[in-house]
């Protein structure tokens, strides 16, 4: 196990973007960062800057206006990177699937590595999803996962 692999698995920083969601999943994501669930025990830190981040956590689906923003954030992140789609909205647009302004899940816009289902996804599930993404990061051995 190289030092890269070890470091990537142990300190993934995340950037969160809330697309066309109902906030339910976004708030659950925040909850997952706080003492009861405490993601910092895995070295996971929430940053606001995509340039510092390894994992993009998406809540909510893509619509016509925010597709550009999602792409923008994704391409600003340095490789290797991974994307976690949290909630059925981010996975497939969920209940809003038939809405006129929705493109669908985030995977219509950027490549997604881990899907976390649930409406709203529970904090435990979100943590599990982020840890899976961290494993993917570790295995990538220098090349980017998810699109590069």
């Amino acid at each position, binding site marked *: 196990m190289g030092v890269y692999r070890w470091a990537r698995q142990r300190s993934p920083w995340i950037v969160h973007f809330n697309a066309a969601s109902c906030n339910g*999943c976004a*708030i659950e994501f925040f909850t997952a960062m706080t003492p009861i669930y405490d993601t910092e025990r895995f070295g996971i830190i929430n940053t606001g800057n995509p340039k510092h981040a390894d994992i993009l956590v998406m809540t909510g689906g893509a*619509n016509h206006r925010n597709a550009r923003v999602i792409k923008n954030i994704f391409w600003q992140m340095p490789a290797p990177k991974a994307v976690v789609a949290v909630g059925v909205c981010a996975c497939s647009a969920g209940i809003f699937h038939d809405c006129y302004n929705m493109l669908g899940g985030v995977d219509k816009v950027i490549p997604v590595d881990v899907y976390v289902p649930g409406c709203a996804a529970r904090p435990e599930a979100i943590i599990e999803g982020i840890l899976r993404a961290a494993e993917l990061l570790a295995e990538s051995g220098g090349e980017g996962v998810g699109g590069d």
Partner: protein
Amino acid sequence: MRQRTVIPFGPQHPVFPEPLQLKLHLEEERVIEAIPVLGYVHRGLEKLAEQKDFVQNVFLIERLCGICSFMHALCYCQGIESLIGLQVPDRARFLRTIWAELARLHSHHLWLGLLADALGFESLFMQVFRNREIIMDVIEATTGGRMIFCSCLIGGVRRDIPNDLLKETIARLDQAEKLLDQIAPVILAEYTVKERTANLGIVTKEQARKLGAVGPVARASGIAMDMRTLGYAAYGDLDFAPIVEEAGDCYARIVVRVKEMYQSFDLIKQAAKRMPKGEHALPIKRLLPDGETVVRVEQPRGELMYYIRANGSKKLERVRVRTPTYANIPPLLHMLTGAQLANVAAVAVLSIDPCISCVER
């Protein structure tokens, strides 16, 4: 002439969980004009509500906003019930009140946490969220869900809270109230908080009227407007008075919300004490809504209005949702004009407790 710059604030911003973009026109550090750019969360829910039938809509409407999902369902169900001429059982009315107040509690906690975070008060943020988990646990024990309750249905509520669970709920809430007792003085008396928020973003009573402010924003400006005094659900049977502050600045809005948290605890206890016996839901078989109506309830953020028009079939003709943040955006623009750039995120925007997914639907 001084130089003007335009700063796009958002849609992705660290202190701001939601994608709202504000185009801030600055003169040096001062904001002279703020223009919101909306549409990052627009889904088209109102049209989808015309495609599904009116019973399915309850579950759709709940997902309009994850924070106050219960209030949306409550408002919608009250509208449909008035259209089909249904009187919900007493116990359902009281249960709805309890859940509505629980939703208010968790929403206000969330706001307090985000405010603390925006002020750079990280330990307080963590404390508030720890406290919030108690309320989330209570919600989960009584409804089965954490964010989306799915407990309000047309004709009543989906499940009962048995009396022993109710007792346990009250005990847990007492615990949460004690913890809040430790937090509230910190935010209310701490001079750094006061220094940053007092005299900032002032909305006078006259302006608040003119700009159509609702909820805590209006109440902090001295307008005693609270839709709960209309007496929907069980609020008609409970004792409370709207909480009003006069100053109209950000600090007053903080005070109003913190006091409302205590009020919610009190209302839940009152409702639990007077909980009537009986069934908790009525069947709605073969009843169809017909006509049009306007319903209003008080959300954590203020007055929520639904306009519903039905035509005697299963599908509704029009569902119009006017959410509180929608009404509070004009006051927000007023607050931002003249504010320092450093105060925009932390203080001005958060003091209206915005919910963008509500605004855009």
